[in-house]
């Protein structure tokens, strides 16, 4: 059994910010080629800050916990700060992840970054 930390279990059992944002400012979708997990992140941006973050995840316990953690970490941060959340940060914040679940933590930050990039490229197009 991948021995999950208490924090991982807590986020898995009670994930924060699950859902979609219908009028999201940015959407980031990533799939994991290794295990087939998928994550979609939705962001709402206000004054260059992540006012709201929501996600949907198809994946294992770690994937769900990571998504929840990322959403919590990102909320309220500036876009630049959001882009700086690394896979490592997420795993650390969760009290570590079993080695064979590292690819899941990579997914979470990546999906957030994609959502921010999506927002920025939309902005760029509009400008």
């Amino acid at each position, binding site marked *: 059994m991948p021995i999950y930390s208490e924090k991982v279990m807590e986020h898995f059992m009670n994930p924060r910010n699950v859902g979609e944002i219908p009028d999201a400012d940015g959407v980031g979708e990533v799939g994991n080629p290794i*295990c*087939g997990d998928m994550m979609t992140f939705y962001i709402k941006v206000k004054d260059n800050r992540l006012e709201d973050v929501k996600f949907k995840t*198809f*994946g294992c316990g770690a*994937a769900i916990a990571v998504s929840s953690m990322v959403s919590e970490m990102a909320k309220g941060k500036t876009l630049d700060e959001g882009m700086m959340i690394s896979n490592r940060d997420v795993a650390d914040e969760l009290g570590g992840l079993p080695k064979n679940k590292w690819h899941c933590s990579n997914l979470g930050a990546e999906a957030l970054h994609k959502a921010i990039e999506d927002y920025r490229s939309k902005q760029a197009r509009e400008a």
Partner: protein
Amino acid sequence: MAETARRVYADSAATTRLLPEVLEAMLPYLKDVFGNPSSLHDWGAQAQEAVEQARGQVAALIGGRPEEILFTSCGTESNNFAIKGLARAGQERGKHIVISAVEHFSVLHSARALEKMGFELSVVPVDRHGWVDPDSVARHLREDTILVSVMHANGEVGTIEPIKEIAQVVKGKSKAVFHTDAVATAGTIPVDVAELGVDALSLAANQFYGPKGAAALWLKRGVRIIPYLDGGVQEGGRRAGTENVPAIVGMGVAAEIARRELATRMKKLTPLRRRLIDGVLSRVEHSILTGHPENRLPGNASFCIKFIEGESMLMLLNSRGVAVSSGSACTSRALKASHVLSAMGIPAEVAQSSLLFSLGIDNTEADIDYILGVLPPIVDRLRQMSPLWAKFVKERR
């Protein structure tokens, strides 16, 4: 461990509990009767007698002769021993091996290891129920085929293979030795080596309420094998190493009980399984049964619950006290979705949603009803989180 309204172990395919009467029979050999069966004094003789008695009991379970039973340490060892030992013993006659696409890794990886050493391997495909067509085996047989191995039943999807018919094909069309991995069937459904017509058969005690640490390879009299564990002359020189006497004794007693109780157990499990399958298929939309609809292990109910992933289902079921397994990539340490589901043509995405209930003699109707109560909300909850489900719902609208 969480406090739950009920604790339901529905993972008998992973391992079964040890029967108290089996433990009882083992205890003397964990206490005073501790001798090494190879020793020539009374301590040794007592241990040896116990091993020989167990050999008879295990032989009786599968209709073999006592001297055809070789004790090993686990089903994996029995399969490694069979595949590698039989292939090596036959390599002067040819170097071609045939196995099915749904074999347990201990057969598949043994065969792959032989491939690296110069053997040739053909893998027979299965149909969408995981069923191996004897005609398909026939098409893979060659002049130089020396070994064919097809499992008796697959523990993951429950499908029982037509071993008798495959044996007829193998014996009729080739000179190959025919091995079957009966780890999932021996002690669970009737297994008779003569009726099956096989030359070698693997079985493991922990699959039929016996101890971990004891398994066996039945090898038909006269079939040549190269020993796998080299060393002393235990097991007639064919399996070296100090015998695990208490576990072997336990395997013997578990075999005897299984033989006596087989029909009763099957009669109990089959309707439970039906109740579970019907319940899941009717209460959980977009769930599909995997494996053969009828011809399956009595306790096996395996599904794909589309749009959600197996490990997360498994963990939420666990939090409600229910133990199951899954063939999803995320539940395997190797991070690959079940090769069994994939061989059955199930797309990777659907295989990710695999969920396996394997019932045992302790399960009751109340267990099934409990499972059927807790599963749908778990599925709902995970689907609410799933982008695949969202997409599906959107597209359906």
